[in-house]
């Protein structure tokens, strides 16, 4: 089980959280201009890299806020977490 540091409430056990997929996936500036393939890519295709990965979590049983976590997909180490609007470099 992970111990995840909520940037608002502090460290809590994983069952209090919900996973929200890859972080920093920007919404297309003008979705109308995208082809079906590009739109599908935005909706469904995510990185599946080994190493440090920025992902979104929601503290569902606590403050209910979304935030970001850096997790090493190779070792499962949680490198740090940071608030929405902050950058991965701010993770702690």
């Amino acid at each position, binding site marked *: 089980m992970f111990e995840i540091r909520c940037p*608002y*409430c*502090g460290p809590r*056990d994983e*069952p209090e959280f919900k996973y929200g997929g890859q972080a920093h996936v920007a919404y297309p500036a003008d979705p109308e201009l995208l082809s079906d393939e590009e739109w599908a890519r935005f909706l469904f295709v995510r990185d599946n890299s080994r190493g440090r990965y920025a992902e979104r979590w929601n503290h569902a*049983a*606590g*403050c*209910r*806020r979304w935030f970001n976590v850096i997790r090493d997909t190779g070792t499962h180490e949680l490198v740090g977490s940071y608030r929405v609007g902050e950058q991965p470099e701010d993770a702690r």
Partner: protein
Amino acid sequence: MADRAEPLAALQGRINDAAFGGTTLMTVPFVAQVGLRVEPGSAAAGRVETALGLELPEVNRMSESGGRRAIWLAPDEWLVVAADGEERSLVALLEEAIAGEGSVVDLSANRTGLELAGPDARTVLATCCSLDFHPRAFGPGQCAQTLIHKAGVLVEQRGDDRYLLLVRPSFAAYVAEWLLDGMLGLKADAAA
């Protein structure tokens, strides 16, 4: 308010019987609870603090004045708690204070109370909740929204060995059963 049913009435006998060595579980069926959302540090937040006569607390803390308590829920969200029957006056007071810059909702029916008190209260809590309640990590005046097994609870430490748990009425029996399980186990250990 004549038609209200106490959510844990059916368990009351077993709750009473589970007491051991000064540690007791008590139902607090009805608590006035008002959800408050306001931008921290804003003028509206300042007016709320003046109206309640307390400072809106920081993360995982509770502040209290004149029988009313503000419990931190999230960066811009608090639960204002008072004695049963005060919900309407509390809503009116808070609505006037925020003057449209935030939200005030009567949530009194959303949670019922369970008070766990006595020398083994923390040990009982530790049997079913993974949060660290050791005094080095958690003390009087602190609160947390966490889980007791699968059910969400708002835990507030009211004294050195006194905890108030606010839980959804439909999950109250589930939470009470886990607490009773812990109490009966420790009671049996104490008797052995």
